[in-house]
């Protein structure tokens, strides 16, 4: 136990993210809420199939998210959090990040499991909202592993490039979101209603429903082909 104390990072106090409800294009309601460590095993069941999906860099993102969430569950990552999106209890996407310091936030990953509904865009916005409005940070450092991520985050939020500042995920130079940029783009990019209706939130918390592997793969890749009968 004493050695475990040495291995566990010291944590900063982190304000909770209050759950909200977003109406999707389908008219369905998506609850966005902060996951608890107890939720991690269920979430990992949805992340695991993505590790085998090469399309749009899901394999890299999936593998990294898997490791990050496991690291969080087992107290090997400092100041991490995870926000999840659920529709009728079903996990449709997740984002995670952490506090590098009181002032600086680190955006880790965004993983949309149900595609075509801007689930990723809504969840990324929730992540920025958490860093700036609830964790009260001054800036968030962000990088992208896919062209889709670059288009969504770097361009839509007009992020500031930080030459020679390495994001902890490695890769290209990092970009940053400042408080000023966040509030400039908030009316266009950040949505949702609070408080989330208690019964809806209770239903979401009761069980995280995970689609089967084939469904997850089809949601991400589609099932189309020129020769399909």
């Amino acid at each position, binding site marked *: 136990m004493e050695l475990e104390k040495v291995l566990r990072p010291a944590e900063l106090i982190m304000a909770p993210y209050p759950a909200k409800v977003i109406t999707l*294009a*389908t008219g369905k309601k998506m609850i966005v809420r902060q996951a608890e460590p107890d939720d991690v095993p269920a979430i990992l069941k949805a992340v695991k199939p993505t590790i085998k999906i090469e399309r749009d860099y899901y394999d890299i993102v999936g593998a990294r998210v898997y490791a990050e969430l496991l690291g969080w569950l087992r107290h090997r990552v400092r100041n991490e959090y995870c926000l999840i999106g659920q529709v009728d209890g079903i996990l449709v996407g997740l984002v995670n990040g952490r506090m590098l310091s009181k002032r600086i936030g680190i955006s880790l990953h965004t993983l949309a499991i149900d595609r075509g*509904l801007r689930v990723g865009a*809504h969840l990324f916005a929730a992540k920025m909202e958490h860093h700036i409005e609830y964790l009260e940070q001054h800036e968030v450092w962000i990088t992208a592993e896919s062209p889709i991520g670059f288009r969504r985050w770097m361009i839509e939020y007009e992020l500031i490039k930080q030459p020679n500042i390495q994001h902890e995920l490695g890769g290209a130079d990092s970009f940053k979101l400042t408080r000023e940029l966040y509030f400039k783009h908030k009316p266009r990019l950040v*949505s*949702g209603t609070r408080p989330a209706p208690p019964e809806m939130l209770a239903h979401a918390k009761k069980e995280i429903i995970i689609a089967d592997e084939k469904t997850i793969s089809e949601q991400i890749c589609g099932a189309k082909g*020129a020769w399909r009968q």
Partner: protein
Amino acid sequence: MRDVAIIGAGMTDFGRLADDDLIDMMASASLRAMKDANLGDTPIDAVYAANMGAGILNRQTGIASALVDTLSLLPAPADTIENGPASGASAVKAGVLAVASGYYDFVLVVGGEKMRNVTGWRATDFVATLTHPYAEYIYGVTLPSMAGMFTRLYMEKYGITEEHLAMVAIKNQENGLLNPYAHIHMKIDMEGILHSPDAIVNNSYVAKPLRLFDCCPVTDGAAAVILCPADMAKKYRKNFVRIAGFGQATDTHTFAERDNPTDLKAVTLACDKAYKMAGITAKDIQLAELHDAFTILEIAESEHAGLFKKGEGAKALEAGITKINGSLPINPSGGLKSRGHPVGATGVAQIAEMTWQIRGDAGPRQVKKHDIGLTVNFGGFGNNVVAFVLRK
């Protein structure tokens, strides 16, 4: 001139076909159409392949030559037809003229485009190359921006609202759910795309007043039809479909040079020619596949084709007339909005869909009255339009 029939139609899935190259897609659609035509050992006399931009998008030219070899149809004559987003219907027109003239008997017309191997930006830029290079393109005009300006003018002139545009999107995505080939299989609703405060993210503006769900997706796909003289058609298919009429018209290349920018003259001229050749009027049309690359175009084309009076397309939409179970269904396939818009394939896909509808083979999206239908393939921003009237 001989009467011309459609004896077979085929289509691939429309969507992101990452594992298939352009020629594969066009070959698959062609084989499906040939099978549907029950051709047996009857040889294909000629091939017309519609494609707008493989030279830019896929670094491949000579599409018809590659396809005819892939299909083992050598030494059949084969031509590639490029007429912007109206390439598909232009290729069908070329095939119809070839059969009508008596020069060929059995003609394969296939359209295809592979657009999803480039980013959305590059696909948008590629389509924008059809605009005037010095008067439009160099100033950054894209088709969505042009459509946005057109929409604004049309809204002001005829009192159309964003709700009307959303109604087109909802209707066509609902129809697309019934079409196994459609790119988009997603039911959307008015709250989610317009009325909810979250709609600003779900359905953000692309080119005001057009939003994301007002625009067709960027799509891969191919479609094909088999044409032959009507007097030979019965041997191959009892319920063949007749080419009753067709028309084509052009308008100024530069949008700003038009006398009235809300007037889609080429649509009216092309449809009038097609009606005249078919010996009908717009009132006789029972269903239509219109070129709804943007939701506004379904409304505007329905008026310019004479299906409704000017300014009354939106009222027809409100009344449910254009729904799949309405009295004049428009885009039962889901249209470009939901089926998708692989530019070179679209005109052929419209005719393939109309063929299935008229035969009564459209499955769950079959409309009630299906004896005579109109297709409108809209090239440029209405500067080259090809219309067909098909009938039983």
